[in-house]
């Protein structure tokens, strides 16, 4: 019997309770009248304090008067319907034909902290997102090892796991802007990257038992996707921190990230972290896989191109404000936090400086939260906003390998404007008098 009462939805239907509704309405009418006269009285003394009532407070909200969803709905949770604009985005410029060899970039203007939710992690493939049956997944490790091996997913996950938080970045992040600014958008100017907590096994742990032969200098990692994506990795990285990962932010990798298993080379170019991994082979000479010469090489003005350009160098950006989320709502004198991200594939962020004049003079910003190697690092600077003044916000990061971000002039003097990849020069947001934010570059 009690159950019946509990599920009697008519109890919540206010239309069936006219008396209650009516008295409530009257109550509001009265309180509105009182507050209006109160405001009128005050206004004689101090006209600045005239405030209209906020209906979001004075009126009942619909979600407060009806049942919410039962817990049986969305057993795998989804974001609020109001957050639909926080999403990956793509553009034709960065895609081949039917969006199978293409990239969708991360909305870093909206991401909090240092972890990218899995559904917002940037996504790049060379032959479309493969959907692999985990029961048919096999990983083969062979070549210059004493004991070649085949592992199922279950067997792979029996190895002792490590969990590490690392950013992953496409080396073409910012690569469309060697000659000039092209995107008035943080998402497209810097969103070819994301950061996650990865779980997997160090390859060196597996190799301990397989016995790497002394002639082994290079490792081919190969995906099982339509493009059979492959890259050559030097043994130094394999024996340092290279991982085979299956976990991303506490759950299985998403298909876009190589489900069930991808290679993770912390700090190195995203494309080297081969997705949908199927094979690792060791040899004394390197391979020349398609994506490591046709793409992902940085052509210099000398006519020579840097190949095997591994680590994403020290970099940073201002995330708040941004062209997407400007300061148009700020009042003169507001105290506001300028926030951003810094990252380096070569070590740990040690300092971030912020300039208000486009890189002429710098002030020290504060790092905040966890400061981890090869990981997004948040930084912060408290600023008193002066309405009507134009600012040129430029951030500049350093890492513990000793590198500092170059200026655009310094970087192009060596790399020219045709390298496409590994552009990490300092970038500038122009905060206009109105508070609007535009992407600009400072060049001599």
């Amino acid at each position, binding site marked *: 019997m009690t159950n019946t009462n509990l599920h009697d939805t008519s109890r919540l239907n206010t239309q069936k309770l006219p008396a209650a509704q009516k008295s409530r309405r009257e109550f509001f009418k009265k309180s509105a009248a009182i507050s209006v006269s109160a405001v009128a009285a005050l206004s004689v003394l101090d006209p600045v304090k005239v405030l209209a009532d906020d209906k979001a407070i004075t009126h009942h909200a619909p979600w407060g008067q009806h049942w919410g969803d039962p817990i049986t709905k969305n057993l795998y949770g989804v974001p609020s*319907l*109001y*957050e639909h*604009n926080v999403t990956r985005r*793509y553009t034709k*410029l960065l895609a*081949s*034909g*039917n969006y199978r*060899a293409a990239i969708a970039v991360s909305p870093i203007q909206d991401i909090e902290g240092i972890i990218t939710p899995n559904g917002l992690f940037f996504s790049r493939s060379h032959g479309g997102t493969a959907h692999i049956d985990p029961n048919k997944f096999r990983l*083969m490790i062979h070549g210059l090892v004493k004991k070649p*091996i*085949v592992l199922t997913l279950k067997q792979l996950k*029996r*190895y002792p796991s490590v969990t*590490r938080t690392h950013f992953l970045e496409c080396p073409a992040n910012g690569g469309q802007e060697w000659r000039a*600014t092209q*995107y*008035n958008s943080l998402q497209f100017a810097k969103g070819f990257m994301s950061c996650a907590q990865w779980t997997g096994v160090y390859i060196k*742990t*597996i190799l*301990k*038992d397989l016995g790497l032969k002394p002639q082994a*200098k290079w490792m*081919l990692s190969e995906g099982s996707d*339509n493009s*059979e994506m492959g890259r050559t990795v030097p*043994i130094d990285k394999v024996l340092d921190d290279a991982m085979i990962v299956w976990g991303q932010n506490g759950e299985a990798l998403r298909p876009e990230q190589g489900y069930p298993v991808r290679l993770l080379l912390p700090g190195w170019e995203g494309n080297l972290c081969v997705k949908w991994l*199927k094979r690792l082979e060791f040899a004394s*000479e*390197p*391979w*020349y*896989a398609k994506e490591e*010469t046709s793409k992902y090489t940085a052509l210099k003005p*000398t*006519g*020579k*191109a*840097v*190949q095997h*350009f591994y680590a994403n160098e020290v970099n940073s950006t201002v995330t708040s404000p941004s062209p997407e989320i400007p300061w148009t709502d700020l009042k003169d004198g507001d105290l506001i936090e300028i926030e951003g991200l810094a990252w380096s594939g*070569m*070590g740990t962020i040690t*300092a971030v400086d912020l300039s208000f004049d486009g*890189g002429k*003079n710098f002030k020290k910003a504060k790092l905040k939260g966890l400061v981890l*190697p090869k990981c997004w690092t948040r930084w912060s600077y408290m600023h008193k906003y002066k309405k009507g003044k134009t600012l040129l916000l430029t951030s500049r990061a*350093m890492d*513990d390998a*000793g*590198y500092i971000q*170059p200026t655009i002039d310094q970087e192009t003097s*060596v790399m*020219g404007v045709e390298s496409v990849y*590994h552009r*990490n020069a300092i970038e500038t947001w*122009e905060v206009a008098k109105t508070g609007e934010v535009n992407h600009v570059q*400072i060049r*001599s």
Partner: protein
Amino acid sequence: MFKYDRKIIFCSIVFLISSAVLFAKKGEYIPSAVGTIDSHPTIDGGVYHPVKDSKTGPYRINEKTLKGGYKFGRKPTKNELKAWDTDIMADGTGLPDGSGTVEDGEELYEAQCVSCHGDFGSGGGGYPALSKGNAYTQQKSLKNQRNKPDADGPVRVFGSYWPQASTLWWYIRDGMPHTRSKTLKDDEVYALVAYILNINEIKIDGKLVDDEYELTKDKFLKIKMPNADGFEPKIEGKGSLERVRKYYKNPKNFGAIKVAYAKRCMKNCQKKSAKIVGVRNGGISDFHPPLSNKKDKLSVKSSKLDVKKIYKDSCAMCHTDDSMGAPVAGKKADWEAKKKNGGIKGIYKRGIKGLNVMPPKGGAGISDDEFKKVVDYMINLK
């Protein structure tokens, strides 16, 4: 090697702690290491975290996990190795015997490749070009910089840029045609490679790969690409890893800058000629979905099938005109001809399964019934 690294890092840490004590003033935080640490650098120019006191960097670890002794998995069989170990290396390791002519290659190209890579490999539709004419001439363009509006850029296609021909052979066999990869026979790959060498006007052993050329394994192994020496650091042969380490030890090689923390520029860091350059001509704003920071409620779209959009996204590329040999959308005669093989059901069936270079359902992620509706739309184009 490992012990040596540890010693250096330990010494550096001692040095840093003492220097931090010496230079720190009024509780100001001075980051350790920046620009002063002389630790063992990694191959990429970064720094290395050894395992010390059950820690590596800021992470704690269980050192017992590092000792090995795991017996998971099994040995691959000979046939399994044969099936998967099919990569092709620069010296020809892995390259199968076979042959193919430029003539056969052109025919295959016209049937399976031209829709994406364009006539004579000229590119288009966002897919890469395979040739821009004579590779030896175009290789010289690699010094070009588009730093002025009317400047020509460098030509980076297979012939002018790629250092090894093995890459082309391997990629065509494993990744092409893009819509249904791993369907070409070895001789067909030889023929396509011959055709692509032909349109790039490559010479093998002094002889031009002309229209009559037949490519064999022996001839393939003699190819020296025009830009074989165009890349740094050198990664093949003796001392390769040492060369790579040395290359990334010098920041000048790759446009990076190192500086001590205390010596970085904080004031007057700019030249007087510094200018603000904004986004030109509105820049690129073809973003999908359009940029918006609105927190409005997502209107749940009706799940009605948008056949027009599916046609545009997945079918139009090949069915707009007859250049691909595919029946043209809206051209009834073409479809009537196809109906002779099993009627409309035959057309559906072949389309669902995929045909020649057409992927199943044209690559559209829709159900069989939805696909049939798209086909119906295509036949009448209304």
